[in-house]
């Protein structure tokens, strides 16, 4: 019996959210007295045995290039067979676009209860209770899973990555997938190199920045901090920034280690998407801006004066100038 982690990949590399999921699965397996294994559909360029350093003892691979692209219906069937053959009791996904597509399907197929958007390890002292994000970050729910097989999708950046020198045993699973009913096509990447949902640091701008032409300093600061960029909803609605940067209750929910909000008022719908960030910095010229109540550090001042100085100070600390 095992805890099975879905190892998601893109462009030949395992996603960071899946490394977190492997560490999470390993700890859960240890708590339950089970073994942790990973399952990868398709092929990647990295050495799979090396994934053992994130904890799994085994990595199952269904080596079929047609599985490199997501097709939730096919992937679910393949995973359901893998669950059976590996005797998995708990299956872990990252709560990312792939996880959101496959985990619910697998749950319905196996009649296995799903907790999506988990933020910590299950409490198994009385049932199998998983803490999850609800009300878009404004609260948590503790959800009990009553079925024999259980599925969890873990919010990226919720569980720390730790490594050891261990190697995993790589096992080929020969499962023949059906033919796909969805043709996956062109991919367009947004400008930022770091996906917003995986970023540890996020620099975000609001309407206080006045216009898209002023985003240069936001991007420069983000680059220095290896951060992703984000924005408030009106900024995306006005097409100052792309839709996929819009965070909040009706945009993306993120939980980076550091969220820097510049010229954003901190409306309740914005806070909902970001208030699980570990540390929040707010730069706003209005001392009464509601965001300061949710912040750890703040500067009351004009962004056009403060941010250039901040950039200089970061460069100085990093020894760039």
């Amino acid at each position: 019996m095992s805890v099975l982690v879905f190892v998601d990949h893109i462009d030949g590399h395992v996603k960071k959210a899946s490394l977190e999921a492997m560490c999470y699965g390993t700890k859960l397996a240890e708590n339950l007295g089970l073994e942790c294994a990973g399952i990868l559909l398709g092929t990647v360029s990295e050495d799979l045995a090396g994934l053992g350093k994130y904890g799994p003892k085994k990595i199952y691979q269904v080596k079929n290039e047609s599985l490199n692209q997501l097709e939730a219906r096919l992937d679910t069937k393949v995973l359901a067979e893998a669950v059976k053959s590996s005797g998995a009791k708990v299956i872990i996904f990252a709560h990312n676009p792939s996880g959101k597509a496959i985990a619910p399907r697998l749950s319905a197929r196996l009649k296995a209860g799903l907790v999506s958007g988990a933020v910590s390890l299950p409490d198994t002292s009385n049932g199998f209770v998983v803490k999850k994000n609800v009300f878009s970050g404004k609260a948590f729910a503790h959800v009990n899973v009553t079925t024999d097989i259980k599925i969890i999708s873990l919010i990226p950046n919720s569980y720390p990555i730790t490594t050891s020198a261990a190697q995993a045993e790589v096992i080929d699973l020969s499962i023949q997938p059906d033919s796909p009913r969805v043709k996956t096509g062109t991919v367009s990447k947004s400008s930022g190199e770091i996906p917003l949902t995986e970023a540890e640091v996020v620099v975000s701008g609001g309407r206080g920045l006045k216009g898209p032409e002023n985003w240069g300093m936001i991007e420069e600061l983000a680059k220095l901090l290896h951060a992703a960029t984000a924005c408030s909803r009106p900024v995306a609605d006005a097409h100052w920034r792309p839709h996929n940067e819009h965070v909040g209750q009706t945009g993306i929910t993120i939980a980076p280690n550091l969220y820097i909000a510049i010229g954003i008022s901190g409306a309740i719908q914005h806070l909902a998407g970001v208030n699980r960030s570990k540390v929040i910095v707010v730069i706003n010229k209005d001392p009464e801006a509601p965001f300061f109540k949710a912040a750890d550090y703040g500067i009351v001042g004009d962004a056009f004066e403060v941010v250039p100085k901040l950039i200089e100070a970061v460069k100085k600390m990093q020894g760039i100038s």
Partner: protein
Amino acid sequence: MKILVCISKTPDTTAKIAFTDNNKKFATEGVQWIINPYDEWYALVRAIELKEKDPSLVLHLITVATADSDPIIRKALALGGDEAIRVNADSQDSFYVASQIAAVAKSGAYDLVFTGKETIDYNGSSVGGMVAELLDLPYISLATKFELAGTTVTVTREIEGGEETDEGQLPIVVSCEKGVAEQRIPNMKGIMSARTKPLKVVDPTPVEALTSVVAFELPPAKAGVKLVPADNPAELVRLLHEEAKLI
């Protein structure tokens, strides 16, 4: 061609989130309810646009809810749609809800099922995928663009840090998010006609929920903001580096 749009209700985005009964129940007193924004602004509006282009298309709305959701489903009908179906049950968990929707979708032989990306109260992102699996249909999730030509659908969907464009065939299940359509305001004509559109109430099919909420919890309050003078951002950098150890 028949489209089914899944509509759920959620507390207004400014509602105070609090719990009663030893944190076992959401405190609904004084809470205003709205149509889940992803269902209203994107899934429903896109379906209405499709119908505007092809008036022969049949557009039905479905909600799994008790009678107190009727005002919400009427509000959705005011935006558009021919009729609504309410499966008369509490939405116990995602699987329970999905099973109800799948049963209706199957017997009604719908070609296209739209859901929102997620409910903004439970944040499951689950119901659409479950419905698709129960119907053994393809599922494209997190759609930011949706085009229909004959029986071919072309859908752009969110992936990490970008988008991917996929192609599929009807019948299919699609979950919708920002980009698919633009929010609309219902007009007077819509509001009047919604009153006379059929709202069918059907009994739920018996299914067991797979999960249950045992308790809620509010996040801990922040300790209070540490302010740094505007002329000294270097101090902020020092704090983030030395105290928070984040940069």
